[in-house]
């Protein structure tokens, strides 16, 4: 009996540490998800690359389709609390398409490094992936933008920090 109490006593710091971490992570985690789904429009495009192929890394030319459409406009199901990043991850996985992201610990933000092996900086120092919701470019991480029913989401490759996607400098 005494032995088991001692064992528990010894384990106490570990248990409390685990609890502490659990509480910490549960506070800042994702919003609660329900099963109610709604539909959003989703597509991935690289029109800017088609127009400026000479800017792109030679080895990546074969990845760019002539019409600039990687994923055509799809009506997909989204769930309450889904972020744009969640949708991107789901769609790319369902289509066996390559997608790589870098995660910032603690705040849990995702930075999209690559879709379909087209990486940020592959077409000049100002190039990378941006997402457009209903024609506007939100200035937040894709993992913190929560989608709503009927949203039209486009992932597009920019060569100029979003200016070529209709984002003006005032947005910063």
């Amino acid at each position: 009996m005494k032995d088991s109490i001692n064992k528990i006593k010894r384990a106490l710091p570990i248990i409390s540490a685990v609890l502490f971490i659990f509480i910490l992570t549960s506070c800042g985690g994702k919003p609660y998800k329900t099963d109610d789904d709604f539909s959003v429009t989703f597509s991935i495009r690289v029109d800017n690359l088609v127009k400026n192929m000479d800017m792109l890394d030679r080895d990546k030319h074969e990845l760019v389709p002539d019409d600039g459409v990687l994923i055509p406009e799809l009506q997909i199901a989204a769930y309450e609390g889904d972020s744009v990043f969640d949708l991107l991850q789901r769609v790319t996985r369902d289509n066996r398409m390559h997608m790589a992201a870098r995660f910032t610990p603690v705040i849990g933000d995702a930075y999209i490094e690559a879709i379909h092996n087209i990486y940020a900086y592959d077409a000049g120092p100002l190039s990378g992936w941006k997402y457009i919701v209903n024609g506007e470019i939100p200035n937040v991480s894709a993992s913190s933008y929560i989608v709503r029913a009927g949203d039209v989401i486009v992932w597009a490759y920019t060569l100029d920090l979003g200016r070529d996607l209709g984002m003006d400098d005032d947005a910063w």
Partner: protein
Amino acid sequence: MVRDAFAFYHPIVNFLYFAAVIGCAMFFLHPILLGISFLCAACYALYLKGKKALFFGLVFMLPLLIITAAMNPLFNHQGATILSYLPNGNPVTLESVLYGFAAAGMLVTVIAWFMCFNAVITGEKMIYLFGRIAPVLSLVLSMSMRFVPRFAAQAKVIRNAQRGMGQKPGLVKTLSILVTWALENAIETADSMKARGYGLPGRTAFSIFSFNRRDGYALAYITLCAAVIFTGAATGALRFRYFPAIQVHEVTTSTYIFFGVYFALCAFPLILNMKEAFRWKYSASTA
């Protein structure tokens, strides 16, 4: 140490050979070129150092190879062929796994070449090669390269002496004696160098190296091979693309010639040793 035919060549030949071979090993990620280079480096290291090289290879290089190869797909997500997904959602790709193996193979190959380099280019040759260009640096290099084996040898002497006195050689005691010996030895070395006029102007270093016709042929052979391989690399024939999808440059007859020349370059010391061995046997049987 074994009698290595290549080590008897002029130091410039030795040095240029290793510069060419290590340079190529560091820049070519083509699997066939890597394989050729690794095979030659491993054979030469085994020939030069025997069991020691085998032990080093199995105990240090094999784990290094496996760890480096396994690390790459965890951090590099490039590649078109998705094998599976990491817990954080990023893909593990076939290309990144293969690239990891290639990079690890390159690391191990370069280390193996440097093992050969250390065996062939002795301190004496180092001083001869760089004594005039950078006298202090070459002296420091040759002294520090001698440092570790010398310490190991002295530690053995100390342990043997302790055993001879009927004591158990302890690590701390051995180390203490070793450090005392090293300090004393350093002062003696400094005194000795001063007594022999180190740092005085007009001093020359003695060497018995002479550049023969044989060395000229060897130098021409190495330069020719290196030039052919350089042409191959410049024309892109030896390019092997890993990302986004593996792509091999069109294989033609010239590609095989480049592979052959690369093998001829990497295996040069082995060929020389084989020639020597053959000649020795041949002359022995006729006599």
